């Protein structure tokens, strides 16, 4: 009887301390439902434009001739170009690489690593004897933009498999998101949950939901199309925390968590932002 009671106690403690990823996701949606009761949460894939009507109108006008269009064209061309060994990107991905971005990041059971789409693109290159591309902008971002474009309208479907290593990677990303850091001691959560929709200088802060659905992004501030990890580095710098290398384990696990939180939301990349 005593053992049974202890087991029950441990079960209750474990359940309360370690919520499952799906419980986290549902609790997060509930958090935003309470914060923005009149908003369709699916609108949050549009970032700050979900909150700011004036900025949204300007953005919609910009979408008539979107600045990321060149990246899509360049990306399609690069994607179709065969490697020196005659193979190509299409040989490395399911469904020939078309309409699959919603499944990334994914957990690779062989290596025990989180694989983002950009990481997989460079893996494809090195597996075929090609040099890896720079991570943040340029050809890699363009290929990713093209692949994102072919995935538009699909629903984010990141999987955390029943593997303790995958769950550990998810938990690491989650801890990173909610931990204050840097000289200014800001967590991602401080801006994108507590202060989502609030004005910060000239813009409003986007919410966490949908933050992973629309990358790569053409940012007017950058003057080019860049990857999500470029933005992670920028966020870290803004709070005076040392940024990590793009596609480092820390950032890949952060993306894993962030993307899972957007599961079920529509893929709308690439996108443009101020």
């Amino acid at each position: 009887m005593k053992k049974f009671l202890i087991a029950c106690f441990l079960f209750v403690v474990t359940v309360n301390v370690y919520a499952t990823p799906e419980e986290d996701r549902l609790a997060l949606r509930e958090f935003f439902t309470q914060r923005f009761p009149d908003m369709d949460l699916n609108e949050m894939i549009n970032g700050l434009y979900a909150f700011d009507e004036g900025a949204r109108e300007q953005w919609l006008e910009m979408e008539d001739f979107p600045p990321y269009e060149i990246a899509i064209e360049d990306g399609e061309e690069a994607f179709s170009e065969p490697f020196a060994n005659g193979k190509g990107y299409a040989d490395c991905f399911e469904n020939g690489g078309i309409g699959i971005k919603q499944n990334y990041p994914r957990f690779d059971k062989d290596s025990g690593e989180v694989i983002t789409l950009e990481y997989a693109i460079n893996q494809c290159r090195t597996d075929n004897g090609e040099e890896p591309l720079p991570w943040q902008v340029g050809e890699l971002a363009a290929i990713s933009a093209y692949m994102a474009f072919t995935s538009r309208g699909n629903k984010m479907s990141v999987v955390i498999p029943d593997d303790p290593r995958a769950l550990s990677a998810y938990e690491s990303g989650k801890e990173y998101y909610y931990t204050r850091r840097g000289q200014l001691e800001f967590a991602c959560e401080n801006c994108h949950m507590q202060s989502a929709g609030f004005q910060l200088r000239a813009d409003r802060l986007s919410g966490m939901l949908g933050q992973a659905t629309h990358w790569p992004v053409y940012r007017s501030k950058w003057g080019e199309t860049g990857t999500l990890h470029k933005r992670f580095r920028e966020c870290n710098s803004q709070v005076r925390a040392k940024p990590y290398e793009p596609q480092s384990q820390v950032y890949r696990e952060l993306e894993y968590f962030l993307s899972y939180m957007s599961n079920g939301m529509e893929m709308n990349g690439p996108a443009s932002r101020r």
Partner: protein
Amino acid sequence: MKRLIPVLVSVSLAVLTLSAPALAADAAEYQAALTKTRETLSDAESKVQLWSTSEILLTDAEEAAASGDFDLAVKLATEARLQGELAVATAEREKKIWQNHVPK
């Protein structure tokens, strides 16, 4: 007055001796400060909490030492170490409380 001369000389020597290390840092003092700073920043980095400003200070300290300005070098290295200690304190505090911010 003659009896005061040895006393004055002793006092002057004592003041000079005691204040000498504070007047000018040397390479050894800088190396000691640098070692402590590197250890602290390494600890902060292992806890995923290094500040971007700390490494800049450390680089500046190394440049100051290279130019022979050990006073400035020690000051900058010490500032970097203090930043590292604050980062470690944040890491230890956040480890205990970050879960409180997760919606349940």
